[in-house]
C-alpha cells in the first residue's frame, strides 16, 4: 500500500502531462486492486447467492451460513484449527522470544549453528518438513493426531517468531540492557521490565504470523494428523474435491473477516509500538 501511494507522489513534468500521468497512475492502481480483490468479491457475493453454482445472481440468502453452522464435521474441523492455531502460536511465541533473546544476548558456541538451523526450517519446502515430521513421529511411535499436529505447527512457526523478535532486539540501543543492569536490575528483571515491554510489538506480530501460518497450513498438516483430529484446511480440501459447495464460500467469507480483524489489531499494536 505504501509503495503504491508513493507512486502517486508529485511528478516533475509539466501540468498537462502531469494530469495524464496521474490518470495513468489511477488506472494502474485500479487494475491492481481489481486483480487482487475481484476474486474475493465474487466469493463473498456468492456466499449470499441463492444459486448453488454461482454463475448468476438468484437472490440474497443466509442459507449457506446456516448449512455451514449445521455441518458438524466442518465446525469440528474449524474449532480444531482454531485450537491448534492458538496453542501453536502461543508456544512458538514463548519459545521463539526466549530463543531470540538468547541469540541476541549471549555468545555461545553453537550460536551460528542455531540461527542457521532456524533458516533451514524456514526455507525448506513444506513437503520436506512434512516428510521429516512423519518419519520422526513414526520412528518415535507417536500417534498421529492432536499432539503430532501441535508439535509440527510449533516447529514451523518458531523461526518466524525468532526472526521477527530478533530484528526488533537488534534495533534497540545496545546499552539499554546494560543500563538496566547498571541501575540494579537482575538478568530476569531486565528481561521482564525492559526487554519484554520493548519487544512487545514484535512479539505480538510474531504471534499473529504464527497463528495465520498454522491456520492455513495444508501440506504439513495432512501428513502429520490422522482422522482422529481433522482440521479445517484439510476438511475443506477434501470437500472441494467433490465440487465447490457454497458452504465453502460462506466459510471463506468468515475466515476473511477473521483475518481482516487480525490485520487491524496487528496494525494498531504496531502503530502503538512505533509512537514510543
Amino acid at each position, binding site marked *: 500500500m505504501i509503495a503504491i501511494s508513493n507512486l502517486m507522489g508529485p511528478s516533475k513534468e509539466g501540468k498537462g502531462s502531469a494530469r495524464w500521468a496521474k490518470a495513468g497512475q489511477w488506472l494502474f492502481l485500479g487494475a491492481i486492486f481489481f486483480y487482487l480483490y475481484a476474486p474475493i468479491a465474487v466469493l463473498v457475493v456468492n456466499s449470499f447467492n441463492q444459486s448453488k453454482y454461482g454463475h448468476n445472481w438468484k437472490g440474497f440468502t443466509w442459507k449457506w451460513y446456516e448449512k455451514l453452522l449445521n455441518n458438524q464435521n466442518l465446525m469440528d474441523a474449524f474449532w480444531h484449527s482454531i485450537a491448534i492455531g492458538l496453542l501453536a502460536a502461543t508456544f512458538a511465541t514463548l519459545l521463539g522470544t526466549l530463543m531470540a533473546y538468547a541469540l541476541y544476548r549471549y555468545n555461545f558456541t553453537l550460536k551460528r549453528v542455531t540461527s542457521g538451523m532456524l533458516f533451514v526450517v524456514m526455507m525448506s519446502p513444506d513437503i520436506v518438513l512434512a516428510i521429516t515430521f512423519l518419519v520422526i513421529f513414526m520412528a518415535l511411535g507417536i500417534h498421529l493426531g492432536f499432539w503430532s499436529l501441535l508439535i509440527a505447527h510449533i516447529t514451523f512457526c518458531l523461526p518466524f517468531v525468532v526472526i521477527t523478535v530478533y530484528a526488533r532486539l537488534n534495533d534497540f*540501543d545496545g*546499552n*539499554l540492557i*546494560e*543500563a*538496566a*543492569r*547498571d*541501575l*540494579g*536490575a*537482575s538478568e530476569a*528483571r531486565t528481561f521482564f*521490565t*525492559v526487554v519484554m*515491554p*520493548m519487544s512487545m510489538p514484535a512479539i505480538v506480530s510474531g504471534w499473529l504470523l504464527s497463528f495465520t501460518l498454522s491456520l492455513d497450513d495444508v501440506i504439513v498438516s495432512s501428513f502429520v494428523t490422522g482422522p482422529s483430529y481433522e482440521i479445517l484446511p484439510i476438511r475443506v480440501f477434501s470437500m472441494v474435491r467433490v465440487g465447490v459447495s457454497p458452504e465453502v464460500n460462506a466459510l471463506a467469507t468468515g475466515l476473511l473477516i477473521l483475518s481482516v480483524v487480525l490485520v487491524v489489531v496487528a496494525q494498531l499494536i504496531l502503530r502503538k509500538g512505533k*509512537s*514510543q
Partner: protein
Amino acid sequence: MAKTLMQFRQVSLKFDTQEILTGFDLDIKDGEFFTLLGPSGCGKTTVLRLIAGFEQPDEGQILLDGHNIAEQLAEHRPINTVFQSYALFPHLSVFDNVAFGLKMSRTPSTEIKPRVMEALEMVRLAEFADRKPAQLSGGQKQRVAIARAVVNRPRLLLLDESLSALDYKLRQQMQIELKHLQRQLGITFVYVTHDQEEALSMSDRILVMNHGQAQQVGAPRDIYESPANEFVARFIGEINIFDARIEQVVSIDEQQGRYLAYFDQGNMTREIVSETRFEAGDKVKVMLRPEDLRIEFLEDAPEKPGFIGEVQERNYKGKTLDSQIKLKDGQLILASEFFNENEPDFDYKLNQKVWIDWVHGWEHVIKADLL
C-alpha cells in the same frame, strides 16, 4: 589528601587476541572530578566498563574502598553510568526512567516520588516528568540520563562523552551544570572525553591515555604546563617542539637547573631552565605553547639569536591572532598573540620575515629519549 575510592591494580584486558589494556593502574580519590582523556580507540570506554562491571578483567584487581570487586556483578556495584547514547528506556516516562533504579533497589514507594522529583528538579526537568524520552531534545535526554543515575546516590558516577552530542552553547552550559552538580552532591565523577579543553576546564585530575596505557596523571595545569612526554604535549592543545642539546650546566638549586642549550634550529645557544636535572651532552626537547612565543618584524630587530621564519597563514580568533610560521628548515610553528585594538598594524603580511623569541623561563624541557 582525600582517600582513594577506586583503584585498578595491573589490570589487563584482551578482546579476542587484541590487548586493550595491559598492566593498567588507576587511582581515583573520593569526591574528585576525574577525567579520562585520550584519542579515539585508546580504551577510555573500556576502563569505564570495567569500573561499572560490564567487562571483567583478564588479570589484575579492581578495588572499591580497598575491596576487590572485579567479580561483582554490575547490578550490585554502588556505581551508576550516564551512557554516551543516554540509553533511556523508550517505553517508560521520564519519571519512570528516573525511578527505575529506586524500584530495583526496593526503595519504599513513599520515598520514590519525592526523590525522583528532587532529582528532576535538580536537572530542571520537573515539568517533563510525564513525557516519553522520544518527546525530549538531546540536551533534555541527557539531563534525564544524569538524573536517572544520581537519584541512586552512587559512590561513583561514570559519564562517557556525555556532552559530545550537544551543540557548543548547550555544551558549555552543561559543563557548568555538571561541575555544579558534582560539588553539590559530593559524588566522585569519572568523566570520559576526547575534548582536551573540556577536560582542562572541568577536572580536578586528568589521566591522559594512549593505546591502553596511562601517559600522565595530574591536575589540568600540570598536564598543560608540564607534559610528561611528546604525546601528552601534542594531545593537550597546540605546542611547538624544538630539538636542543645541553652544552653546559650553569647552576642547579633545589627547584630548578639553569643550562646553556644549543639549538640546531637557528644555530644558536640560549639559556633554558628546567625542573628536570640534565647533564652536558643530553639531548632534550624544548616545548613552547603558542602563547609563549613572541614575534617581531625582522626589519626593526637587531641581529640577535632566535628563530627566523616567514608568516604562512594568519587566523583571527577573536581574542587572539594565530600565525603559522615556517622556519628556515621547513618546520611549521604556531604562535598566538593577544589581539591589541590600539595597534591596528599588528597584522602581519603574508611571507613577512619574522624573528621569534619566547618568554624566558616559560619553556618546558624534557629528555629526548622519553619520547
